[in-house]
């Protein structure tokens, strides 16, 4: 069943005959399970997901067109050691990014030091409205999704940072719940770190960043509403945290404060976990046509009357044009060597890089800066001649609008597809939470490109999800399961770091 993609590192198989240590137990179990049974589990999952309503809307289709993101029943496993490495790297990165955001909206020392060019201030994602504005605990990206890919046993790369309104955490939580329901026997054999406390950690963090002087802060989640593609996730997280799920029309501004309309009259709101982009937050400042936001919100925010999570203007730090400077930021702000590497990146504003990229377009991945979602992107090896030519013209006419990277040999993970079990490319998005501390729960969203050979894992492009199991101990022998005792706190401690 595993043969063709030997050019790629596989999460499970070393070669045709051997499996990686952490998968040994799983593999033994898998050998005994007929594929039909796996498939019926997959179907069961689909029925359950539909019943719970874990669906996303597809823009531009008939309302009522709710789709499931495909769920794969074969998990991705990470050893405790691998996780320690990844989580330390992700935390380091997010700490530096938050310091960068504070700096760029205050003294701009990193520009004066000549590390980041001044042209960054012209980036569309830079919000001059935020200059000089102090946010609680100097935290801008309260929730950060760090996209990681793997190319070998030891090599992980950061593909991109998501610091605006990163989504997908509900799949981390729901996929886990589903796996525990479908395969309880596997959870007895492995000691798998729990992720269920994510909403609680997030809520504690959000409460910790309430405006100064607020004793018992009211936290709400601001959603664009039931027709947004990620609505399920908004509802799910709000419910798990026990906070109100509000829409723009539920909020209003009065006397430098934000209120929500309740059946008992107006109620003051202190922290808004917003899942609406900057552009739609406040029609008085940003997009004037927006019906999703709250008129006057930004003015209250700038005066410190309410906290927004994530902060306004984080996009300047996760833009692809900024990405290349993150390793230098880590050195500049933290005085540390980056734990996780960036993908080698060509800057097309440099003459040499541009020359090389134009000559090797068919081998490279080209991404538009200030874009997201996998649309404004060229995957060289998969592109047609015409697409290559179109992109060449676009690059030549505006080189600084693009970056290019080598096509990475993304690792594969065995996945249940129509033909049986076959390797499919995967990535990994752990969620880093910043509040009082910077933490992550030991788990991640694992996205899988279901099409054979495809490297694009986005759900908007037909990707699916897998549960990610972080194993709590290195010893993965079967007897270990009996001694399963590691507590949630312990695994959290490992990945905690105080904000300086």
């Amino acid at each position: 069943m595993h043969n063709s993609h030997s050019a790629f590192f596989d999460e499970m198989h070393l070669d045709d005959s051997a499996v990686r240590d952490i998968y040994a137990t799983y593999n033994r179990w898998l050998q005994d399970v007929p594929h039909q049974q796996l498939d019926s589990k997959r179907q069961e999952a689909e029925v359950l997901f539909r019943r719970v309503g874990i669906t996303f809307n597809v823009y531009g289709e008939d309302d009522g067109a709710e789709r499931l993101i495909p769920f794969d029943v074969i998990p991705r496993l990470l050893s405790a050691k691998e996780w320690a490495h990844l989580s330390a790297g992700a935390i380091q990165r997010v700490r530096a990014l938050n310091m960068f955001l504070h700096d760029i909206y205050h003294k701009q020392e990193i520009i004066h030091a000549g590390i980041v060019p001044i042209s960054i201030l012209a980036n569309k994602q830079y919000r001059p409205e935020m200059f000089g504005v102090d946010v609680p605990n100097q935290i801008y990206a309260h929730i950060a999704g760090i996209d990681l890919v793997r190319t070998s046993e030891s090599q992980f790369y950061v593909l991109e940072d998501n610091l605006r309104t990163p989504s997908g955490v509900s799949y981390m939580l729901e996929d886990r719940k589903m796996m525990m329901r479908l395969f309880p026997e596997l959870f007895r054999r492995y000691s798998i770190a729990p992720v269920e406390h994510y909403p609680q950690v997030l809520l504690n963090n959000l409460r910790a960043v309430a405006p100064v002087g607020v004793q018992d802060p009211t936290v709400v989640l601001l959603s664009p509403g039931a027709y947004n593609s990620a609505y399920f996730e908004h509802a799910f997280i709000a419910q798990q945290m026990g906070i109100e799920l509000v829409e723009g029309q539920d909020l209003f501004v009065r006397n430098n404060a934000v209120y929500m309309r309740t059946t008992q009259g107006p109620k003051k709101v202190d922290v808004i976990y917003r899942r609406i982009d900057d552009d739609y937050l406040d029609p008085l400042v940003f997009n004037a046509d927006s019906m999703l936001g709250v008129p006057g919100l930004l003015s209250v925010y700038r005066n410190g009357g309410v906290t927004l999570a994530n902060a306004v203007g984080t996009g300047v730090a996760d833009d692809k044009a900024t990405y290349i400077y993150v390793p230098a930021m880590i050195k500049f702000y933290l005085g540390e060597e980056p734990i996780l590497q960036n993908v080698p990146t060509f800057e097309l504003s440099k003459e040499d890089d541009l020359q090389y990229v134009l000559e090797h377009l068919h081998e490279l991945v080209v991404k538009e800066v200030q874009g997201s979602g996998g649309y404004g992107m060229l995957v060289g090896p998969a592109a047609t001649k015409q697409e290559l030519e179109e992109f060449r013209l676009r690059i030549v006419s505006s080189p600084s609008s693009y970056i290019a990277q080598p096509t990475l040999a993304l690792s594969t993970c065995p996945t249940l597809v129509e033909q049986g079990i076959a390797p499919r490319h995967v990535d990994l998005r752990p969620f880093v939470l910043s509040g009082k501390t910077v933490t992550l729960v030991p788990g991640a969203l694992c996205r899988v490109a279901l099409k054979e050979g495809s490297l694009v894992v986005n759900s908007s492009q037909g990707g699916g999800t897998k549960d990610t199991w972080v194993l709590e101990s290195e010893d993965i022998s079967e007897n270990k399961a009996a001694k399963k005792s590691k507590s949630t706190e312990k695994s959290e401690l490992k990945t905690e770091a105080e904000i300086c």
Partner: protein
Amino acid sequence: MLSRTADHLYWMARYIERAENMARVLDVTYNMSLVPNAAESEAALWLPALEISGSLDAYERDYPKEYTSASVIHYLAMDTRNPSSIYNTLRSARENARAVRVAMTTETWENINALWLEFDQFVGVDLAKSGLREFCDWVKARSHLFRGVCFGTMLRDDAFSFVRLGTFVERADNTARLLDVKYHLLLPSDEEVGGAVDYYEWSAILRSVSAFQAYQKIFSDSIEPWRVAELLVLRSDMPRSLHACFDEITQILEQLTGNRSNECKRLAGELHAKIHYGKMNDIFQNGLHEFLSDFIDSNNMLGSEIHKTFLSATSG
């Protein structure tokens, strides 16, 4: 709680209740059609069903001069053009639920979502040919389930109150309409009182509000029109009667507003008093039809007041 959330919960419950009542009317009307000579024509049999649902005008626009059982059944059960069709009311219930799934328990949400997923089995089925009974039974059962899961899992907070409020405002309206339309049609013309057809007709009304057994138990006597009216208007121990609905409504409004007084409470109290202290003789003397249409109007007014006081997002 958020006004918008309350609004969605209230309408979710109203739509479920509306679907249940529509299913009851369809069910008994269909039963009547199986009784020989029950009505002089198909139209006479099915028109009242359209009238009760308040969709007669719209129906006549969509199906000019066509009162066949097939088209009426389709119109009331499945037609996407009819906003009060069971299809549309259940769909609206689910849309409202989806918009505020956070405000209800997971079990409540999953119950409504499952209802909508299960509905699929009836789509495309010609219910007039076969399967109408099963369909109506299913709608009623899902409505019972909905109330049960709310009762069994929801915190007794404002969210619960608004769900209950929606249920009873809708139910009061539906019972009043049913009685008004049917009573009007069935008032005994001097001849043929007490015939077999009459018996079926009256028992059908009782069955449509699940009151047949209650009637037998309370009166254990032949079915008399004035007793049916009394049962459905004045008896407080009859769960679908106007009195029972307003017992609940006044109580819920009390819980929602505490000591504060408002127009909602005043309206509801006034209506409640009318039923609570009303006498059937007086009602008949002044005309049952007049009484019921007044009631329906006042109940509608209460609905708008509830919107103004609790549900609209314009205050503040």
